[in-house]
């Protein structure tokens, strides 16, 4: 395969990642007229197409070419889409979580056409966020996630879903509106809308702390960091399982991805002053999120707060902005996408059977629903950062880097790590172990659910054993922003 053919394949794969789910959405909607089960088949087809496109990008000569030249574009003249080692893990995560979300919503019968259609629109917009090479397109994709997700949470969520959905919409839109000013300021300051061009030029000329925070505030609400995180526990808890999986699995990663892709490279000079603030926000997030998770009585809310804690690690790693810490941030995000996706999937499956998420009403599930319990213990250990599983490398590297930069202050982060382990073990003990609780007639995972959980588990192990799969691919991108990791220009 010649270089040109390889490029054509890449271009086709990039467009397919966005357009296939987008075009499949109305089809899924109309497919409901042929029967309530039809839309999910359309959705499965579209998400499998996304997985196939990712597989094409991952395999063979396209991948080799990618490692060699770094960033590869589609629609090169327009400079709209591009893929590199930073975007690829996130796109793969998007496709994988899409599968899990669809699997989790397999039994949704209420307006299933609209449900699948909204899910597919979110999938397309998410893929577009990670693939955009144009800051305006990036912003458009970024905001396009909002309304479909709002309707997904509000339309299919649990009791307080409408209020949670409104909170989600207002918080993230507020962040987005500030981000818009940042995007405009970038266009005015750099005179270009191409992310690649601005990065190659070493950032936006004259960009200071103001631009840094204009851009970052949108990302930090999505991530989220602690003072602006309050939308997350509500939205994640009240959302339907598919919504929670996509929210925790990919949506939060938009924030971290945006920080690494846009904020750091565009305003490198502000890093010296603003980086420590990010680190501090992150440390607060880890401790606060873990402490809140520890006292939750609702299992889904516990998992939701654990997201706050894990995303705190990402904020710390991004704020340190060294080569190692940025790799760690990406690792942590991908790992959390897999682990939280799996946890929400399992909690959703349990809720479907028991119709409650109160931790105190469960107990001894290990002898009632064996496979579910094995998967839950596995996911909890991965979330706690057990070495050999995907959570460990990223968080460990973040801790080391924090110690190198901040000395003994890193012990606060260490306390957070202990808390993270504590709430995970508390969850396992209360639900899986001990005497059986009030709810004792829970059927075990079915075949569809077992396959989904197994796919996630395999990915978690692979990433835990071989984190270099991601870090090696990241090298060309980190080289291209060496002016950031070198401590500013």
């Amino acid at each position, binding site marked *: 395969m010649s270089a040109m053919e390889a490029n054509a394949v890449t271009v086709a794969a990039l467009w397919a990642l966005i357009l296939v789910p987008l075009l499949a959405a109305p089809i899924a*909607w109309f497919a*409901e*007229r042929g029967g*309530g089960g039809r839309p999910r088949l359309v959705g499965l087809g579209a998400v499998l197409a996304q997985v196939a496109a990712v597989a094409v990008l991952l395999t063979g000569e396209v991948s080799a070419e990618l490692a060699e030249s770094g960033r590869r574009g589609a629609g090169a003249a327009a400079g*709209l889409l591009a893929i590199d080692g930073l975007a690829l893990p996130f796109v793969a995560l998007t496709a994988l979580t899409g599968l899990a979300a669809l699997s989790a919503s397999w039994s949704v*019968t*209420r*307006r299933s056409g*609209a449900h699948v259609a909204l899910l597919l629109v979110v999938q397309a917009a998410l893929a577009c966020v990670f693939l955009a090479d144009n800051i*305006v*397109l990036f*912003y*458009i994709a970024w*905001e*396009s996630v*909002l*309304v479909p997700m*709002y*309707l997904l949470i*509000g*339309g299919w969520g649990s009791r307080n*879903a*409408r209020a949670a*959905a*409104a909170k989600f*919409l*207002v918080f993230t*839109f*507020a962040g987005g*509106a*500030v981000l*818009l*000013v940042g995007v*405009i*300021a970038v*266009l*005015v*300051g750099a005179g270009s809308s191409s992310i690649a061009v601005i990065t190659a030029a070493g950032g936006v000329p004259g960009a200071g702390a103001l631009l840094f925070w204009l851009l970052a505030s949108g990302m930090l609400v999505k991530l989220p960091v602690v003072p602006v995180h309050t939308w997350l526990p509500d939205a994640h808890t009240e959302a339907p399982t598919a919504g929670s999986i996509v929210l925790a699995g990919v949506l939060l990663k938009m924030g971290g991805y945006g920080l690494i892709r846009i904020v750091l490279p565009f305003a490198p000079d502000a890093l010296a002053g603003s980086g420590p603030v990010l680190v501090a926000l992150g440390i607060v997030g880890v401790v606060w999120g873990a402490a809140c998770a520890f006292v939750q009585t609702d299992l889904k809310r516990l998992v939701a707060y654990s997201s706050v804690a894990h995303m705190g690690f990402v904020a710390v790693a991004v704020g340190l902005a060294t080569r190692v810490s940025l790799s760690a941030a990406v690792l942590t995000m991908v790992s959390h996408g897999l682990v939280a996706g799996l946890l929400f999937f399992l909690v959703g499956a349990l809720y479907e059977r028991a119709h409650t998420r109160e931790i105190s009403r469960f107990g001894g599930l290990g002898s009632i629903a064996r496979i579910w319990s094995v998967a839950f213990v596995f996911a909890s250990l991965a979330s706690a950062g057990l070495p050999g599983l995907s959570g460990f490398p990223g968080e460990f590297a973040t801790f080391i880097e924090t110690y190198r930069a901040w000395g003994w202050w890193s012990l606060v982060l260490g306390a957070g790590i202990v808390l993270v382990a504590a709430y995970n073990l508390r969850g396992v003990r209360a639900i899986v172990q001990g005497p059986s609780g009030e709810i004792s007639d829970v059927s075990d995972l079915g075949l569809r659910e077992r396959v989904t959980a197994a796919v996630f588990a395999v990915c978690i192990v692979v990433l835990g054993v071989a984190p270099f799969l991601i870090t090696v691919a990241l090298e060309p991108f980190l080289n291209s922003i060496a002016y950031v990791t070198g401590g500013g220009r």
Partner: protein
Amino acid sequence: MTAEALLWLTIGPALVGAVAALAADAFTTRSGETGVLAASVLLAAGGLVALVGGWSFDHAVVYDVLHVGRGYSPVAGVVMLLCAVALASARGSRFAESGQGVVLVALIAVGSVLAMSAADILFLLLALETVAVCAYALVALGSGGGAREAAMKYFVQGAVATGVFVMGLSILAGTSGGRLDLSVPLAFAGSAGSALPALVPVVLIVVALAFKFGAAPLHSWAPDAYEHAEPAAAGVLAGPAKLAAGVAFGSFVLALVSPETGVFEAGSLAGDALVVIGAFALVSVAVGSLVALPQRSYRRMLGYAGVAQAGYALIAVAALSVSAASFHLAMYAIASVCVFGAAAAFERLHPAWDGSVAGLAGLGRRRPLLGLAVTGALCSLAGLPPFGGFWGKFQAFGASVALSVSTAERGLVSQSAGYAALVAVGVAASVVSIAYYGSVIRSLFLEKGPEPVSPSSYPSDASAENGGPGSQNPEGRPHPPGGGAAEAGVIALAAVLLGLGLLPLVTGLTRVIEGFSITR
């Protein structure tokens, strides 16, 4: 084709339509249905000519009083087409049964096009008065005592505004020796050697224009009028008429900029006037958003939201980017006709609707396509991508940010801070706007309707979607004949907004907005 021909092909069909509808109304009974159709076709024809001509004709001034060509004709085209759509979607409603509404809408279209194209202040006044007189009558055509009251209020306030305008105009006429083109205030300031004497008539006229444009604090007529007028009439007043008033406002302000001296130098007429414009922008954005938030009535909420939208356009005008203002207003006008048209569709689907946002509960589930279209239009109004309204807000804020940066570089600290404040308030108001626009989306889709919608009834009412006029609605009653027009109009306009939102990604933004470029 000459520039004069372009002008006459734009407004001629509408004039013919207005006269014919007047005659038909005088000599026949029940002229409405045919008249509506004929008038909308004529208006649409004129609009299409202007839209196509606008991109191919360079800017020119005809008869010394009217701008045509690039920058102006595309906006005129949008005004005409929107009036046509508003009329067409009123087919089958009570509004269309009398011929008077048709005449008024056609005359408003003509007056609006003349006002936004005016290169002469006296001509601007006459065109605006044509619109105003028709608008009073249009509001009064609404049903119920509220309509009469709103029309009376609108009329009295409008008369005061006209008086203020005439006062400003007479000062200018007294100093210019009869010349009244838009550059007269600038010449006056030049001959007086100071901006101060010229500032008096300029501020008087700006205040009158702000009233016509519905900018706060001169906005109190707008929510009343929009709430009590027939939905189609409210769409015309809130959409195309406001678009034209805004562009006229912008052209007037732009003509104050002296080509020789800088805008922000001491004693510059434009610099002083921009402070007033900026104040109107700030107050409109803040008041419009904050008062829209607690509204319960759908149309009243849209009325206050329209005040905030006028404020966004004024942010662009204050940043001297009338192109951005006119593009933003064009997107706003399309969405406005769409959401007011939706009010007509809601009334038809749900005859017991009390006009409140909460009363729309579950309608989106019963009519998914209509609900999605309204959602799209509301997202566009809130400035969410990928809808056309995003690009409008994007440019309005962009113009202000660019000026804030460039004034800061030139050491003009207070101007830079002023533009930054405009952007900051605009962004904050955008965030508030998602709450009130979102409340409609929430009602449409997330709230359960009065009658429980069982899953089994869902596919069947979805299949009634394509049935059009005369098909059965879920309650089993046939729709009133021709009543599907409002719904079709809403869906078409929402599709246009989506298309306009995506088009710049394909062609680049410059290609789309160059038709709207109004420069000095």
